[in-house]
């Protein structure tokens, strides 16, 4: 509004009030809250209050800015003086007494008003002082003001005014009492040990001398408010103890802290509500601490060097020994510097001490600096994080179970692999909602074993579960194929859990949590080994058979092995994220799988072909994937069989099996590739295959070694070949798609890994706690 001219006293008074109301230090005071309290305390009728608010523009703006607030205060004064409220009255009414606010807390304000007006000349040095002892009212306001501490002398000067004021304060009028009042109503101080950190500041200060004088004065005026010191937090200490302490604390009040914000803090503290935990930091207090921290160190994530902290806390006039002890308690990482959390804890301890609390021997939990989160809660952030994480592994198993039943059903024949399937089940389901997708995912999973471990880390619980599933699926697959692979997949499952447990989100910067659990290292990636193993096996098995086939097969297995395994595990769903690779893996794994997976592939069919087509199959498959299968024609009969089989399965499988079929008729190896595909596909195949597989394996092995390349029959081959070609092409596209998806997953996982490593680096400094 229009220019508002305030006298010095008014200026001071208003700024005090504004600070009092502006607890958020945002320079914008919401209309509700303190401002309303204040105005009501002015004992003006509500409509007048509303009028004032309107006039000052707060209603227009929605909040009380500094100017609005000042105008409002002026209007209150105007109203209290009986003048009509008008905009122009703010400047026209001269010699307007300061607005008086009556309520308990406002007593001092009114006193201040009185004191201000009466002691304007004294104000100069008085501003901001909280000379407790001197005239309660005036002093208090002085203390309330956040100005620098004034020498006690000013307080003494105030004393003459105090007689003026004292009558107003029949109750122990010192500001402190005021504070006390406010405090008690607010909440039963019972556990407000630190409700008055603000007052705490006031005791600090140079004007010690004045206190005694003040005390005398006070006693003269009224029974020395025993509770004088909210400043000294005497009020705040839990309930009853507060009162007895007051007399003692009265003395403390003489020390007025130079920190200007002390008064503000006091007010804030005053308002603080009761605590449950004596050491708990309220939001107000925390806000205050943070502000104080900012004055020393603008960067909230930075440190306050020891020397600065020493200087700061020395102002509290606590004995060095106690300060030293407080430092020991609060400097959690023993680095000689205080982070925000450490600083808040230290400040809190100082406040408590000023209030008469004894320092604990050990840092209370609520004051523990937190590594990552900057919460005030007593709980340590990481603990909660850990809990969350630990839960995730737990989630994984349950998640597995739902999938398991379904998978179990689908894989009835997979007796031996049932355990694996159990583990594996989760995998398919978790990854994607859609079945098809799941199949692909499964295939991917085989390839993604390595990726899975890491990704969950980032995502945590859900991911962990997924990962577990994946791991299990991998296991499953590997179980089918290569025994050795399983162990690694097992490790995978455990890794995510560990990781989950270990990864606690820590707020790293400010807090220095004592023991930050080091981020778990990304789970190892067994897959390569799996694939290797499988490939090795494949090599072994294939080596026996034919060199050429071997080459093809061997080459592929390393790349693909994982796929076949998972594909088998999920069985039902995976159609085979088909790639040439996957096909190849199938082929490659099939030999391995043969021993384990009796069911996959159509052993029944293999039986038919058992004789000789194994080699053909392998050749076919190997060739097929990479290229068109000339083999097919050779092994028409086999392929036809395969075709038949594949029909029942997913196309991929058929594609895979087609070549397999081709050779299948002849060699036991045919089943292996097919089984691989089968796994991807559905359980139906598995069932019959399981049993047969076992039989086949032996046969296949023998056949592989001995199989002539392509004893394909020609007859129906053509049709079969064409069908198989079709199928292979489809399989190829599917595999290609799967491959791309896997690549994407790999990238994601690598990114996760990088981020985890970064986190690890960040947390490393706290590892030594």
């Amino acid at each position: 509004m229009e220019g508002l001219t305030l006298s010095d006293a008014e200026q001071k008074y208003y700024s005090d009030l504004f600070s009092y109301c502006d607890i958020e230090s945002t320079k914008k005071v919401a209309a509700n809250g303190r401002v309303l309290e204040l105005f009501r305390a002015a004992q003006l009728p509500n409509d007048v209050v509303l009028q004032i608010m309107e006039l000052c523009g707060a209603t227009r703006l929605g909040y009380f800015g500094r100017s609005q607030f000042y105008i409002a205060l002026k209007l209150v004064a105007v109203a209290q003086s009986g003048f009509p409220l008008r905009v122009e009255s703010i400047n026209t009414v001269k010699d307007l007494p300061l607005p008086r606010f009556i309520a308990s807390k406002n007593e001092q304000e009114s006193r201040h008003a009185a004191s201000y007006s009466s002691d304007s000349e004294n104000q100069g040095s008085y501003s901001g002082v909280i000379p407790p002892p001197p005239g309660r009212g005036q002093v208090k306001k002085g203390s309330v003001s956040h100005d620098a501490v004034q020498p006690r002398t000013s307080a003494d000067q105030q004393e003459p005014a105090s007689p003026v004021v004292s009558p107003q304060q029949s109750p122990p009028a010192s500001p402190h009492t005021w504070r006390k009042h406010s405090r008690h109503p607010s909440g039963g101080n019972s556990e407000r040990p630190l409700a008055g950190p603000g007052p705490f500041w006031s005791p600090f200060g140079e004007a010690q001398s004045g206190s005694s004088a003040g005390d005398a004065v006070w006693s003269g005026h009224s029974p020395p408010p025993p509770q004088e010191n909210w400043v000294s937090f005497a009020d705040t200490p839990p309930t009853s103890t507060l009162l007895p302490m007051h007399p003692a604390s009265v003395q403390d009040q003489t020390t007025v802290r130079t920190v200007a914000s002390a008064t503000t803090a006091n007010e804030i503290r005053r308002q603080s509500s009761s605590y449950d935990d004596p050491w708990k930091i309220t939001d107000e207090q925390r806000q205050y601490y943070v502000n104080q921290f900012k004055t020393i160190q603008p960067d909230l994530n930075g440190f306050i060097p020891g020397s600065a902290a020493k200087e700061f806390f020395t102002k509290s006039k606590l004995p060095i020994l106690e300060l030293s002890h407080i430092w020991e308690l609060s400097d959690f990482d023993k680095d000689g510097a205080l982070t925000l959390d450490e600083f808040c804890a230290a400040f809190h301890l100082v406040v408590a001490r000023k209030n008469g609390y004894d320092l604990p021997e050990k840092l209370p939990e609520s004051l523990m600096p937190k590594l990552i989160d900057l919460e005030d809660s007593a709980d340590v952030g990481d603990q909660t994080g850990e809990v969350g994480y630990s839960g995730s592994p737990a989630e994984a198993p349950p998640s597995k179970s739902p999938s398991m039943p379904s998978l179990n059903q689908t894989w009835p024949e997979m007796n031996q692999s049932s355990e694996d399937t159990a583990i594996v089940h989760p995998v398919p389901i978790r990854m994607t909602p859609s079945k098809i997708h799941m199949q692909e995912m499964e295939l991917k999973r085989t390839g993604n074993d390595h990726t899975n471990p890491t990704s969950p880390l980032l995502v945590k619980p859900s991911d962990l579960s997924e990962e577990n599933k994946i791991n299990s699926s991998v296991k499953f697959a590997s179980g089918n194929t290569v025994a050795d692979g399983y162990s690694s997949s097992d490790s995978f499952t455990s890794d995510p859990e560990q990781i989950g447990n270990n990864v606690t989100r820590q707020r790293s910067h400010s807090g220095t949590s004592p023991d930050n659990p080091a981020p778990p290292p990304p789970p190892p990636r067994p897959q390569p080994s799996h694939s290797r193993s499988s490939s090795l096996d494949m090599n072994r098995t294939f080596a026996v058979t034919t060199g050429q086939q071997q080459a093809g097969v061997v080459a592929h297995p390393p790349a693909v092995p994982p796929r076949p395994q998972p594909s088998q595990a999920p069985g039902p769903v995976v159609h085979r994220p088909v790639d040439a690779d996957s096909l190849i893996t199938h082929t490659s794994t099939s030999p391995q799988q043969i021993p384990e997976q009796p069911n996959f592939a159509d052993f029944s069919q293999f039986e038919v072909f058992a004789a000789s087509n194994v080699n053909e199959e392998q050749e076919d498959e190997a060739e097929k994937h990479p290229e068109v299968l000339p083999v097919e024609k050779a092994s028409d009969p086999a392929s036809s069989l395969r075709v038949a089989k594949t029909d029942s399965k997913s196309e991929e499988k058929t594609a895979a099996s087609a070549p397999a079929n081709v050779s299948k008729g002849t060699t036991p190896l045919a089943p292996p590739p097919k089984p691989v595909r089968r796994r991807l596909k559905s359980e139906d195949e598995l069932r019959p295959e399981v049993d047969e597989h076992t039989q086949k394996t032996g046969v296949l092995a023998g056949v592989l070694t001995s199989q002539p390349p392509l004893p394909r029959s020609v007859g129906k081959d053509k049709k079969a070949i064409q069908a198989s070609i079709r199928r292979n092409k489809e399989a190829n596209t599917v595999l290609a798609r799967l491959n791309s998806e896997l690549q994407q997953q790999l990238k994601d996982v690598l990114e996760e890994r990088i981020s985890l490593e970064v986190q690890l680096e960040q947390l490393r400094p706290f590892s030594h706690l």
Partner: protein
Amino acid sequence: MVHTSLDVVDEKISAMGKALVDQRELYLGLLYPTEDYKVYGYVTNSKVKFVMVVDSSNPALRDNEIRSMFRKLHNSYTDVMCNPFYNPGDRIQSRAFDSMVTSMMIQVC
């Protein structure tokens, strides 16, 4: 005791000349005929010296134990040093430090 500590200091000073980083020195040789006790010296990189006087009542403490005790002492001392309120040269009044030292002594005896 005073003489011995002085001697120990002299020894260390001489040690400083040659091996600056002499983390630990066993000054077992100092055994008075009447008072059999051992004095162990330990100097930090910042020339802070720790002198430990041990009665030889119990079987002589193993060298390793002494070393570990000095290590713990050194760590606690650095923690105390971190406190900006602590002025070097003052008597250490850190409770944590005291408790550590006490526990160490109890453990040995």
